[in-house]
């Protein structure tokens, strides 16, 4: 396996982006930042890959016009997944492993605000027996939350702790859209939004884009960015079933499997974990599945509860984890991304500081 490191990361998030669904206006400055961070230009990139969704944009091939932001002339080696950009990063990492590229630029984007997101995501469900009822994503998460309350997996206070901690941590995150010093009591005082969830238990609808550059450490161009690099030491993803009736909703076995495949043998050794948990109780599930210890700092960025730009939120977790490694705040960081209802599909990326 080739050693690959994260060498650049940039993001933009807001409640409502007053711009086009392909977010070209956001991608241009995001890319600009990446060039600034690395000192590279587009000719240094061997492979490009993006993550986005036609249904978020409301039209077919919505990712195509985003390519304008790349300056793809002369033609580039490029691909796209209709998934969170964290999986685009995985495809890019694979490309580097095959030796066909030494570096890759990955980006994700989406305007969740263009249409009621919680309703649109009902289209991810079984089209025959579930989607025709239009169960929204918040209600599904709420079912999962109540199951845990009933079975003693967590209580109201544990959920409120996640929400409070996330909101408070986000104060230091210039990109977060929901932030503020918050106590557990502040959260519990909030009215119920989707019983048993409160609004602050649910990720805010967020528009945004993010980009990342990774490079093989054995490539000559890596020397220019060696100083600020976070090594990817584990990278894997797995999926569970979609059907809510056929799985244990209090577990996310694919998260545990991804962690294991990514080489995480002792979660307690992880200094910082950025978990893509769009609902507070899901963070609790993930912490258990990933075997994280009490000393692991969870979501210093505030996590998805502070900002959840669909189709880049997972990549943002990886970027935030990389940032902590760059700053020296973490020697080992774990980033997680999720896709599908109630933590169906999970990805784990482990990053380490250069020794």
């Amino acid at each position, binding site marked *: 396996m080739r050693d690959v490191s994260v060498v650049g990361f940039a993001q933009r998030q807001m409640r409502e982006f007053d711009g*086009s*669904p392909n977010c070209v206006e956001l991608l241009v400055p995001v890319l600009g930042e990446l060039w600034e961070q690395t000192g590279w230009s587009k000719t240094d990139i061997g492979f490009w890959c993006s993550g986005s969704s036609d249904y978020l944009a409301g039209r077919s091939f919505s990712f195509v016009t985003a390519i304008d932001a790349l*300056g793809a002339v002369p033609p580039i080696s490029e691909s796209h997944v209709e998934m969170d950009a964290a999986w685009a990063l995985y495809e890019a990492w694979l490309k580097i492993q095959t030796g066909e590229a030494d570096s890759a630029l990955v980006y994700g984007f989406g305007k969740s605000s263009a*249409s009621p997101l919680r309703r649109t995501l009902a289209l991810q469900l079984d089209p025959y027996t579930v989607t025709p009822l239009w*169960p929204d994503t918040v209600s599904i998460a709420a079912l*999962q*939350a109540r199951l845990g309350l009933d079975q003693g997996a967590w209580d109201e206070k544990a959920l409120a702790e996640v929400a409070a901690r996330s909101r408070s941590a986000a104060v230091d995150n210039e990109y977060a859209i929901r932030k503020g010093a918050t106590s557990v009591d502040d959260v519990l005082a909030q009215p119920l939004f989707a019983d048993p969830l409160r609004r602050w238990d649910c990720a805010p609808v967020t528009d945004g884009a993010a980009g990342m550059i990774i490079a093989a450490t054995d490539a000559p161009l890596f020397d220019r960015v060696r100083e600020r690099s976070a090594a990817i030491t584990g990278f894997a993803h797995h999926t569970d079933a979609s*059907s809510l*009736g056929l799985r244990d909703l209090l577990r996310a076995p694919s998260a545990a499997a991804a962690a294991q495949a990514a080489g995480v043998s002792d979660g307690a050794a992880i200094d910082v974990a950025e978990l893509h948990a769009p609902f507070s109780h899901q963070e609790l599930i993930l912490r258990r599945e990933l075997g994280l210890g009490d000393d692991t700092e969870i979501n210093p960025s505030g996590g998805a509860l502070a900002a959840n730009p669909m189709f880049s939120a997972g990549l943002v977790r990886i970027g935030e984890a990389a940032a902590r490694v760059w700053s020296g705040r973490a020697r080992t960081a774990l980033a997680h991304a999720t896709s599908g209802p109630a933590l169906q599909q999970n990805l784990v990326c482990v990053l380490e500081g250069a020794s």
Partner: protein
Amino acid sequence: MNASASLHAQMHVEFPYTRSLGPVLSRFMTGLAAGRIVGGVLADGRVAVPPPEFDPTTLAPVTEFRDVAGSGEVVTWSWVDEPLPGQPLDRPFAWALIRLDGADTPLLHAVAADSAAAMSTGMRVRARWGEERAGAITDLVFEPSDGEPLATVSTGSTTEGDVTGITTPVVLDYEYVASPEESAFGRGLKEGRILAQSCPTCHKVYVPPRGACPVDGVPTDEPHELADTGIVTTFCIVNVPYLGQKIPPPYVSAYVLLDGADIAFLHLVLGTEASDVRMGMRVRAVWKPEAERTYSLENISHFEPTGEPDADFETYKKHL
């Protein structure tokens, strides 16, 4: 109005998808039409509702079925204060995972309860069937049942024969926001002006202008107002009608390269026999009256020939 504010519009995306069911779902939906709930027997003996097409463990097709009762218990639930379009009820209701008597796995459905206070894990619910049933998951909802077992509804199927397909409309509404460049272009068009922009790096004049020059990746922001004349580079004659098409065929769909532009765009050439249109033909825009204009190139009704000599092939061949 703020001259630099972006243009907004509503987008309605709707289609009545017709889905064929295959053997397993056909059994399930046919059952629903008849007021019966059919489960699939899994390899491990569990009865799953709805029946999966393929066994979750062995991945073999599910071939054994068993009716389950129309009543059961709530495994978990959540409350909806403000129902969304398309949801089973238009007043507050509960979603629930319901384990029907005779089934081992729960079904996701809606419970018509008066309030969240009326819901509890473990409570009994029963199916309330619609009078007209199509053979679809929407043929029923659930309601709290005070415990009496529900007699199977055997009023017979309201649908003739087996249900082999369902129609599931997908309706979504989006707010579309145009980029700054699109918005400026659109505003110009409303005034009957063609406001192109060029890339500050390569200086090519783009019409419509772009959020990023596709070659250099930077916004096209140098303004160039263009005349509404140009040439046809290439074209086709459309003979085929399609959904939403307003112009009667045959008509010419052509790439128009305006004088001063470095890229052509698609538009219509009318006002002459389609068979008279040629590559290189000089054309001018025919604008709609100001009162009819919106913010798109539709403000130009079409292009028509000017009668001037055709452009030489060599002058435009690089634009093909």
